[in-house]
């Protein structure tokens, strides 16, 4: 499958994503500089983690106006698969590809550590192997200062109705508790999708948990889901 990874000034997980997709999962990867106006022919766009534009003003607020974003939004709105990781998630929120907004973590600090997330909805292209392989709790690291998700009550209700809450922070057994919520996110939300489930944003970094050498392969499950979904769609 053909993956496009967008590179913004300040992106720093673009190479990690490319490594996992190319070396571990044997996929085709192209980097797309943010100043490009058109995406190449692609099956999935990844907005990687990092600190685009130094996180000035708000995380993702300036990157959202990069030239490439117009085509990324068009791609996402027309059903193309878009995965936003960490800063990529923040950019998707600012670009209104996903509902809600991020606030600074409840403790005001940058948090970098492994967390457990529960797969709340396995019926998406990003998560469907989680059910098939019986993994509903994933161990994946987070690394952010603005990951405290917020949405107004009516928006949250609407998201629940449409199964858009995809991941919640949980303990190692899969129980969603206040203590397992690292950043104060509304209802422990760690990842969400749009109504159509083709655009997903998540704060944890699956590309940092895709090889056993790095402590967890749970992140690779999401990329493998995407690849399997795309292969099925092509048949």
């Amino acid at each position, binding site marked *: 499958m053909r993956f496009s990874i967008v590179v913004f000034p300040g992106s720093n997980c673009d190479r990690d994503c490319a490594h996992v997709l190319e070396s571990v999962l044997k996929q085709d990867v192209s980097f797309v500089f943010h100043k490009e106006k058109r995406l190449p022919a692609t099956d999935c766009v990844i907005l990687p983690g990092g600190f685009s534009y130094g996180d000035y003003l708000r995380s993702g*607020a300036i990157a959202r106006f990069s030239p490439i974003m117009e085509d990324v939004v068009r791609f996402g709105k027309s059903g193309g698969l878009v995965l936003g990781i960490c800063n990529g998630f923040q950019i998707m929120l600012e670009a209104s590809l996903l509902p809600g907004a991020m*606030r600074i973590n*409840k*403790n005001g600090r940058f948090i970098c550590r492994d967390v457990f997330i529960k797969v709340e909805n396995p019926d998406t292209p990003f998560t469907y192997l989680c059910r098939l392989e019986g993994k509903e709790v994933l161990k994946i690291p987070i690394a952010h200062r603005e990951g405290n998700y*917020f*949405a107004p009550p009516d928006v949250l209700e609407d998201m629940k109705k449409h199964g858009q809450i995809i991941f919640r922070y949980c303990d190692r057994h899969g129980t969603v508790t206040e203590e397992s919520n690292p950043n*104060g996110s509304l209802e422990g939300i760690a990842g969400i999708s749009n109504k159509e489930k083709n655009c997903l944003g998540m704060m944890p970094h699956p590309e940092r948990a895709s090889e056993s050498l790095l402590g967890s392969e749970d992140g690779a499950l999401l990329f493998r889901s995407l690849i399997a979904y795309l292969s099925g769609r092509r048949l």
Partner: protein
Amino acid sequence: MEARMPKVDVVVLPKEEVLDPQGLALLRALHSLGFMEVKECRVGKVVRLDVEGSLERVEEMAKALLANPVTEDFSIVVKGGEKG
């Protein structure tokens, strides 16, 4: 309205209903210094613009980029007066 308004401050603050970790931390710090009269503290940002043009245009800028309507409110302060 005057056509020229060299300095405009766009004041961006977290909405009332949105948790503000920085404001809470600052409130606790003020209390620990003995400033018990402070009841609430919210931290935002000021964007100072040197701009020729209308207030409407500044409002457009605030809505398009300077504030996030989901979590933040903004007000526009022109030298010598305020316009929300």
